[in-house]
């Protein structure tokens, strides 16, 4: 296999760390890291050495306000109304979301096994046009899967991707949950650290270039919104 070439492993690892490995090649390498212990080892070696370059930069004390802001964003219960991009976006009232979601649950066929969804969400537009239905299955408190179903009413955009974001209740930055299918279903596992926030945060879908947001934050219009509601 061509990955047995140590020079190639070095090259991929260093390009990955430097950031010059992009797109599909980058994702392939990430997958490779989970499959090949030897390549993961090469990668960790490079990571531990290349990031020493950061140690050659002189230390500079950040201003006090940076820590205050961090504390406020993480621990303050008081609402800090910043000019967040989703401010004023709560167009879909919770009651409305719940009523539509309940409707869909009643309409959908009964599950064959007793693994009933523990929470559901409907992602819909301002005009209540439904796009996706999400149902959550809790296998254990730390193992939660969400099945996403694209509804036939969804307006397909072949030249774009729909990216799902979690907007934490504490108003910290949106966290990407991945791309949504435009047809059919897909399943994703909720990262353990996001489980508490999934219950309290808001879900939003933005229109992004194919492959998803290039910046890690929403770049396009937010078209759909919803929240997980316990069944």
């Amino acid at each position, binding site marked *: 296999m061509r990955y047995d070439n140590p020079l190639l492993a070095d090259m991929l690892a260093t390009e990955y760390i430097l950031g010059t490995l992009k797109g599909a090649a980058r994702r392939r390498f990430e997958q490779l890291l989970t499959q090949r212990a030897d390549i993961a080892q090469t990668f960790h070696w490079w990571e531990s050495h290349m990031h020493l370059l950061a140690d050659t930069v002189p230390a500079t004390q950040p201003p006090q306000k940076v820590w205050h802001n961090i504390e406020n964003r993480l621990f303050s219960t008081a609402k800090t109304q910043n000019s967040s991009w989703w401010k004023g976006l709560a167009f879909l009232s919770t009651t409305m979301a719940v009523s539509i979601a309940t409707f869909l649950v009643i309409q959908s066929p009964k599950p064959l096994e007793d693994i009933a969804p523990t929470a559901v969400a409907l992602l819909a537009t301002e005009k209540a046009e439904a796009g996706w239905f999400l149902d959550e299955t809790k296998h254990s408190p730390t193992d939660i899967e969400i099945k996403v179903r694209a509804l036939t009413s969804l307006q397909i955009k072949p030249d774009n991707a729909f990216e799902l974001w979690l907007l934490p209740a504490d108003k910290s930055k949106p966290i990407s949950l991945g791309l949504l299918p435009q047809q059919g279903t897909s399943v994703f596992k909720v990262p353990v650290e996001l489980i508490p926030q999934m219950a309290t945060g808001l879900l939003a879908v933005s229109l992004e270039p194919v492959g998803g947001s290039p910046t890690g*934050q929403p770049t396009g219009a937010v078209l759909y919104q919803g929240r997980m509601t316990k069944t």
Partner: protein
Amino acid sequence: MKQTKSSEELFHLLALSGQGDRAAFQALYEATSAKLFGLSLRILSRRDLAEEALQDAFINIWHHAQNYRPEKAAVMTWMTTIVRNKCFDLLRAMPKESQLLDEQSMDDWASDDLGPLEKATEQSQSKALLNCMSTLAPLQRQAIALSYFHGMPHEQLATHLAQPLGTVKTWIRRGLQSLKSCLQGVSA
């Protein structure tokens, strides 16, 4: 001058942060934020953005502290990766013309004397890295540093260094291979 914390101490603080210990998280911030802010400034060249990047990075560090795996990377490596990624996110969101390059620092890497860089280093391993970097050709060093601190694609590097693309790619590749042999020689 604050005493630098050992990596074991940092690990301890990070592990406690992962369990929700705010005091430990603050201590972790105090021990590492100056170095990481220096890095943000180097990458972004703008104080306001560097502050934003540091802030976002520490929010991330708090949320992901429990996912940290010591067998994969040292605490400082892990935190450096998070800060550098946040900086690049901001850098990419900036219009090309307002992306500033810290020319002075890049000249430091091209110079024959890496003394000024060594002054800033706090870990013995970084001094070893600098020693090995000093065995590379100046332009090779500079290409690696530009790539690391600015996430510069090879094409942009080639323009910046006024060299053909293929040459720059080969420099970096060979430079990193020599670096590896040198570093493995040191630790062997």
